[in-house]
């Protein structure tokens, strides 16, 4: 069973009331106020979950008590917060996003950003965690307590930045349907429609704190169920679906077909490698091998890192910004260099629309132009004591392939006469007590291998 609380390098996350309490929130925010080196203000924002107000009040109190000025951006997407940190007239020390992204309504979380709106590196996150556990917070005396202010134009300033890259005036005729899943994308896209006279058709646009229109996941399954059937009837050229804080996005074609979540990064990698100058794609071990094929065409390279935002953040830090074309994962979370390497679903949506316009292709044709990779994804509940034995057995049994053990086990096999390239990845989730199993093959569904892996994993787990 999923534990209702997880405190880790990624931050604080839990089921409100059952795991995540006001005390956790206040201590973690105080730890962050203690941790920050820069003297500047801390920017905060939240997604529309009802518990968000409780978390916001606790975060504000702890930051003020640590002598931090706080700027509350209100209900905004995580990328809006990150851009505002980087852009502010007064140099911000960092920011906190209150929201649990693709998790269901009863969850909430705190995510932390450093100056520039960047995710914390592993080393920084470790330090933050140490301060949290030590509970030695640098509360200031009464006359040095921070001041709270509100900033209402963060979304407009964010749209200004997007407009420089995408030129919204040229998008007036674009006809898309967007499923906001009751989340913050609704606020941003309504404003966009109004300000630039765009005609995006929004559904599930009522921002909601308790009953989301549907599970806020960007998986192909949710797109097929919620969005794809509507695209043809409304005559849209594409459909997009966001998670609650709009850092992830998924899509459906004009023919009403849900597109695999793996394709968001693949399409944009193709687009951005062609634009240059960056030639490097950073992604995790669980993401489609189509990326290698696309990178190869452009003379580029794929760097594979362990799953999770942390490994991607650390990898980004090892390269100059202009070496990198794009970073992201197969979940629909994509970071682009033009947008300061922030996971940003809205920027990704416009990048896809720009690609369609420039290549004069319908979305279904764009997607169909790539070789078909079939991916299977599964998960098995975990008994943590048996994990080492499971991996030993996997390594022994699949000794024939190329093995990568940086995050669980990934095994790759080259193309043969009978079948295309294939790989599998078995790893332990960082956020839930499950083992995840991924398996992909070029040209065909690797069903037999997938089931074999699931059977084996089940012998050791649950």
């Amino acid at each position, binding site marked *: 069973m999923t534990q209702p609380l997880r405190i880790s390098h990624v931050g604080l996350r839990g089921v409100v009331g059952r795991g995540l309490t006001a005390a956790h929130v*206040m201590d973690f925010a105080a730890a962050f106020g203690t941790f920050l080196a820069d003297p500047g203000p801390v920017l905060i924002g939240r997604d529309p979950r*009802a518990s968000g107000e409780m978390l916001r009040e606790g975060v504000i109190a702890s930051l003020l008590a640590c002598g931090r000025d706080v700027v509350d951006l209100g209900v905004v997407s995580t990328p809006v917060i990150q851009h505002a940190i980087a852009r502010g007239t007064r140099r911000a020390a960092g920011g906190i996003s209150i929201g649990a992204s693709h998790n269901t309504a009863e*969850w909430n979380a705190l995510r932390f950003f450093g100056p520039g709106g960047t995710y914390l590196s592993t080393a920084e996150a470790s330090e933050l965690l140490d301060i949290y556990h030590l509970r030695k917070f640098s*509360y200031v005396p009464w006359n040095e307590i921070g001041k709270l202010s509100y900033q209402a134009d963060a979304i407009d300033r964010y749209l200004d930045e997007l407009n420089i890259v995408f030129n919204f005036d040229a998008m007036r005729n674009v006809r898309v349907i967007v499923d906001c899943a009751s989340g913050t994308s609704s606020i941003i896209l309504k404003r966009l429609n109004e300000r630039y006279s765009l005609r995006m058709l929004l559904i599930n646009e009522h921002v909601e704190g308790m009953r989301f229109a549907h599970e806020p996941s960007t998986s192909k399954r949710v797109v097929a169920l919620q969005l794809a059937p509507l695209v043809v009837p409304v005559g849209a050229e594409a459909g997009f679906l966001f998670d609650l804080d709009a850092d992830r996005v998924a899509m459906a074609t004009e023919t009403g077909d849900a597109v695999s979540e793996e394709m968001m990064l693949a399409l944009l990698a193709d687009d951005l490698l062609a634009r240059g100058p960056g030639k490097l794609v950073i992604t995790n071990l669980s993401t489609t091998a189509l990326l290698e094929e696309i990178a190869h065409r452009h003379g580029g390279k794929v760097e594979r890192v362990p799953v999770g935002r942390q490994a991607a953040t650390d990898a980004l830090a090892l390269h100059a910004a202009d070496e990198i074309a794009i970073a992201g994962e197969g979940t629909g979370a994509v970071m682009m260099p033009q947008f300061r390497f922030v996971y940003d679903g809205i920027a990704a949506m416009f990048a896809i629309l720009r690609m369609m316009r420039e290549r004069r292709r319908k979305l279904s044709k764009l997607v169909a132009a790539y070789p078909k990779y079939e991916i299977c994804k599964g998960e098995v509940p975990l008994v943590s004591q048996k994990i080492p034995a499971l991996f030993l057995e996997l390594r022994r049994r699949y000794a024939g392939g190329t093995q990568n053990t940086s995050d669980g086990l990934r095994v790759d096999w080259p193309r043969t006469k009978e079948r295309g390239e294939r790989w599998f990845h078995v790893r332990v989730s960082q956020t839930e007590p499950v083992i995840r199993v991924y398996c992909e093959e070029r040209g065909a569904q690797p069903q037999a291998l997938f089931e074999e892996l699931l059977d084996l994993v089940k012998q050791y787990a649950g």
Partner: protein
Amino acid sequence: MPDESRAADAKHVRQHPLKIGVSGIRGVVGEFLTPALTAAFAQAFGTYVGAGRVIVGRDTRSSGDMLQHAVHCGLLAAGCEVIDVGILPTPTIQIFTGSSGARGGLAITASHNPMEYNALKLFGPHGLFFNHYERAELLDIYHESAFKHASNDEMHSVRSDRETPVRTHVERVLKLVDVEAIRARKFRVALDGVNGAGSELSVHFLRDVLGCELHAISVDPMKPFPREAEPKPEVLGDLSALVRDHHCDVGFAQDPDGDRLAVADETGFVIDNDEVLALAVDASLARKTGPVVVNLTTSAVIDDVAARHGAQVHRTPVGEANVVEIMTAVGAVIGGEGSNGGIIHPGVQLCRDSYTGMALLLDRMQASGKRMSELAGGLPKYHRRYGKVGFQHGRLGTVMQTLEKAFPEAQIDRQDGLKLMLEDGWIHVRSSNTEPILRYAAEAKTAARADDLLAAASKLLR
């Protein structure tokens, strides 16, 4: 110094930087009174009063905003709905708690304590202080950390209402007096608002509502306290000067949360607090007679004034909650505590209220046509002396017996320590609830006799 709360004056006595007890929490903000502790206490409060509406306001201390967010966090976490009334006097918050049908209320104020302190005052469903048993129950919840943790579905919001509380308070006070007659007199009034929570309301009340020509100092809630927070004669030099410079009819001074009142006559002389209470009692009984309730250390002048109106006086242990409890029980028409400038009128709210005091005194001047010095001069004259001595555990009983034997002719009251009532005066000895000391006071018709009684007590207690 008979008053319990004078103990908070750090210059006089040792004070602990944090105190959690049946009166709530109070401490030096920062290292001791932390936002996490405040939120936990608020969550205990929310758990105790139940998921419903809770009124939250504060005084002008610079730590108030930070602590208010912490209080909001704790209350929301307990499933309460928060009504934020912002910076308002404590009596205004109590009145609104009672009139709005809320489950309870919290005032973030350390009253007359120095700037570095802050505290929570806690009110039950009718805007009254909890009784001793209720406070003990609340404290148990806090210590057990047996908090209600609301889930996302049970979460409420913070709403703000800054108008209704002020309107309600003013309306209630105006019912006690002849407003038109006061307005017609166009009194010239000096005010020292100590830059406290009443700053704005006091200006509005005296100038706009009661039609006074107002000369006000220290009525900027954004500025720090310009003088010691407790309005005692030795710190009210500026008020006296203001009265003289502008030839005012009367001068008023408040404490930071607007429950205490000090009064200067038209010569700038600051009138003794017991006499101010006596004038308020007189003014109130002149309109409607009935039982009067004051604490044991309050001057006998109250008995004389009550006798003029054929009213009975009830005496209680020191402490606002004690006075209020007996006022309810006997159906008092007016009450208070002499030494601390607290005037309590049940027609407004069973709490100390400086606005009630101001209105009653102006009304008395209007009705009698007398100057403030004449009104005070018309009271029977008593002389009071105060002392304190270190408390020795185990010796208290012996000390009290010695004292009792020394005055065999005295009538005795043992409700709060020992009060010896003599033919021509009284002695009251009690142990402080907040510090390890014995406080003693004496009163007599002549200064010499008051000195003698105090000296006798002092000698026996040492």
